[in-house]
C-alpha cells in the first residue's frame, strides 16, 4: 500500500560543518512529494530508541519514474540523527511518506518571500525550486543564531531575486533576527505571500509582522511527532480556524501538525506562550528540530484527562 517504502542512500555529504545531507533514491516519494511535506525515517532496528525521525524534504530531483531522489538535511541531536549520519552510499533506509499537507502555491504569478531560520529553512529550498519552475518570483530571508548555522546561504544567493541574511551574533549578514528585516523586505519586494519555517518563536514573530502588514503567511510548524500519520495526537498545535459561515469566531482546537499540517495559515495558529524550546535530545522528533512548549491556551473546563493516553 501507499506511503511505506524503502530507499537507497545515493550520497551523504555535508553543508558547512553543522549539517549532514542524505540523498536517497526513493521514486515513490520523489514523484509525489510537494514542498512542506515530510518523511518519517526509521533509524535502524535498535530497540533502545524506537520512534521514527521526521524530516521535511529539502530537495527533490525527479528523474522520470524510476530513479527520483529526495534529499534531507539535519544536524546531530540524538541517537536517530547520529545513526543517519553514519549511513553511507547503498545503505537501505525504511521510509514512510510523503506525509502531511504541504505549502499551497499561488495560482497567479506572485512575488513570494521565503523566511527560514536555522535547519528549519530546509523545506523552503524545495519550495523555492517549485515556485521558480512555476514562474513566480522568489525572495529570501535566511537567518540563524550564527553563520555556521545558516543553511546553504550560497544557494540562497543563486535562487533568490533579492535576499537578506541575518545572524543573531552578527557573524554573517545583518546582525539580528529575520523579523528585523521582514517588514522592509515585504515593502521592497512587494511580496504577495510569505512562506516560513523555523523555530516556533520565529514563526510566531513572522506571523505577527505579516498580520500587521496584511500579507498572507503560510507557516510550516515544528512539533514533536510520535507516529507522523495522525493517530498518536502528540504533534498538535492550537488553531483558531477562520470565522464560520454564521460569522462566529470558531473555537480553538488542537490540530495535528502531521496530517492537518505541518503547513498552516499563520493567521489561524494561536501563538501565545510558545516561547521555550524543548530539550535538544527530544527535538529530533520534529521535522525541523526546534519545537517549543505551548502553555495551556485551550480552556479544558470540565475535562479531567489522565496522565497517559
Amino acid at each position, binding site marked *: 500500500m501507499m506511503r511505506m517504502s524503502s530507499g537507497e542512500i545515493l550520497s551523504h555529504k555535508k553543508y558547512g560543518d553543522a549539517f549532514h545531507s542524505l540523498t536517497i533514491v526513493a521514486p515513490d516519494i520523489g514523484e509525489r512529494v510537494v514542498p512542506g511535506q515530510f518523511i518519517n525515517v526509521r533509524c535502524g532496528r535498535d530497540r533502545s530508541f524506537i520512534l521514527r525521525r521526521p524530516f521535511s524534504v529539502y530537495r527533490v530531483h525527479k528523474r522520470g519514474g524510476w530513479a527520483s531522489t529526495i534529499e534531507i538535511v539535519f544536524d546531530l541531536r540524538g541517537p536517530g540523527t547520529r545513526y543517519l549520519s553514519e549511513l553511507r552510499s547503498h545503505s537501505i533506509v525504511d521510509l514512510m511518506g510523503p506525509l502531511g499537507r504541504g505549502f499551497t502555491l499561488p495560482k497567479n504569478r506572485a512575488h513570494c518571500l521565503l523566511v527560514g531560520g536555522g535547519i528549519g529553512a530546509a523545506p523552503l529550498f524545495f519550495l523555492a525550486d517549485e515556485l521558480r519552475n512555476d514562474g513566480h518570483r522568489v525572495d529570501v530571508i535566511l537567518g540563524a543564531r550564527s553563520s555556521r548555522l545558516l543553511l546553504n546561504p550560497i544557494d540562497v544567493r543563486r535562487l533568490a531575486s533579492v535576499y537578506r541574511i541575518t545572524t543573531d551574533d552578527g557573524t554573517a549578514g545583518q546582525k539580528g533576527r529575520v523579523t528585523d528585516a521582514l517588514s522592509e523586505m515585504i515593502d521592497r519586494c512587494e511580496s504577495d505571500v510569505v512562506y516560513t519555517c523555523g523555530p516556533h518563536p520565529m514563526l510566531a514573530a513572522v506571523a505577527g509582522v505579516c498580520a500587521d502588514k496584511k500579507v498572507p503567511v503560510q507557516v510550516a510548524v515544528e512539533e514533536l511527532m510520535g*507516529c507522523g500519520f495522525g493517530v498518536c495526537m502528540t504533534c498538535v498545535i492550537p488553531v483558531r480556524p477562520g470565522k464560520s459561515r454564521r460569522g462566529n469566531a470558531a473555537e480553538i482546537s488542537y490540530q495535528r501538525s502531521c496530517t492537518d499540517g505541518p503547513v498552516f495559515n499563520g493567521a489561524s495558529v494561536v501563538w501565545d506562550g510558545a516561547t521555550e524550546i524543548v530539550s535538544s535530545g527530544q527535538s529530533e522528533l520534529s521535522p525541523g528540530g526546534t519545537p517549543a512548549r505551548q502553555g495551556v491556551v485551550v480552556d479544558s473546563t470540565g*475535562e479531567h484527562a*489522565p496522565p*497517559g493516553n
Partner: protein
Amino acid sequence: MGASPDVSTTLAGLELSAPVLAASGTFGSGREAAELVDLSTLGGVIVKSMTLAPWKGKATPRMCETPSGMLNAIGIQNKGVDHFIAEELPWLRKQDVTVIASIAGNTVEEFVQVAGKLRTGGRGVAAIEINISCPNLEDRDNMFAHATGPAAAVVAGVRKSIPKLPLFPKLSPNVTSIAEIAGAVLEAGADGLSLINTVFGMSIDVETRRPQLAGGVGGLSGPAIRPIAVRAVHEVHTAFPEVPIIGQGGVASADDALEMLVAGASAIAVGTANFVNPRSIPEIIEGLRAYMRARGIDSLQDIIGSLKHHD
C-alpha cells in the same frame, strides 16, 4: 507443508480470525492507518477512547522518548461519542474488520451515558473496552482503575446500560494488586480484561529542570513495559484461569506476542509499535503462524496459558 495453522481465537463469545488487535489510542479510528495497512489483515481495532463530550487534550509537549519506549500525556483528545457514531462508525462498518469501542469518562454517569449511546447507535461495535484509567471527578481525581470500589462501579454501570456486548475493562498496572482489581470488575459484570494500560512515569529536562511533558507525569509504553505486562497477565490468569485476557504492553514482535499468549492472554493488542511500523500487526500474525508451523502446532489454543514452571 500442511494447512495454515489456525490462529483464530475467542474473547467471551467474540470470534477473531486472528489474535492481534490494534490497541486503543494508537490507531485512531482505523481510518488514518488504512492508507498504510490493509485493515482486513488485523484481528481487530480497539478505537481511540471516546468520551461523552469532545475532549481537547493536554498542553504540549505531550510526548517524550525514553529508553525502549515513550511517555505520553495526550489527555484522550477525541471528538466525542456522537462524532464516532455519526462519522467514524459508518465508515468502519464498510471495512472488513472487528471493531472494539473504547469508552472513557470522569464520572460513572459519563461512562454509562457513552455506553448507552453505543447501545442505541453503535451497530457494528463488537465489544467495549472500558478505559478506567481516568480521573474520577467525584473522588478528588483518583483513577477509577486504582481502587476496587470505583473500578467496579464503572463496570456495573456500563453492564446495566449495555447488557449484551462483551465488556473488557482495561486495568492499570499502577496498583498494589492487579488481581484484586480484576476480581472486583469481574464481580461487577466484566466478561474479560484488557491488561495493561500504560505505566506511570516521568522524565525531566535537566537544562530547564522542567518535566519533559507539559502534564508532568505521563504513561510509559513500548518495549520497556513488556515484562510488567507479561507479569500482570500471568498474575491475573493464574487467579482467574477461565477469564479471557487481551494482553497488551510493549508487544512489537511475534515472540513478544507469544510471551503474552503463553502467560495466559487469549488475544494481544499492539500499541506503540504501530507508530514505528503500521504493519506490525499483520507481520506479528504471520510470525505466529510461522512459529506454529515450525513446531507442528495446529491451533493457537494449544499455546494460550501453556506456561511451564521450573522444577
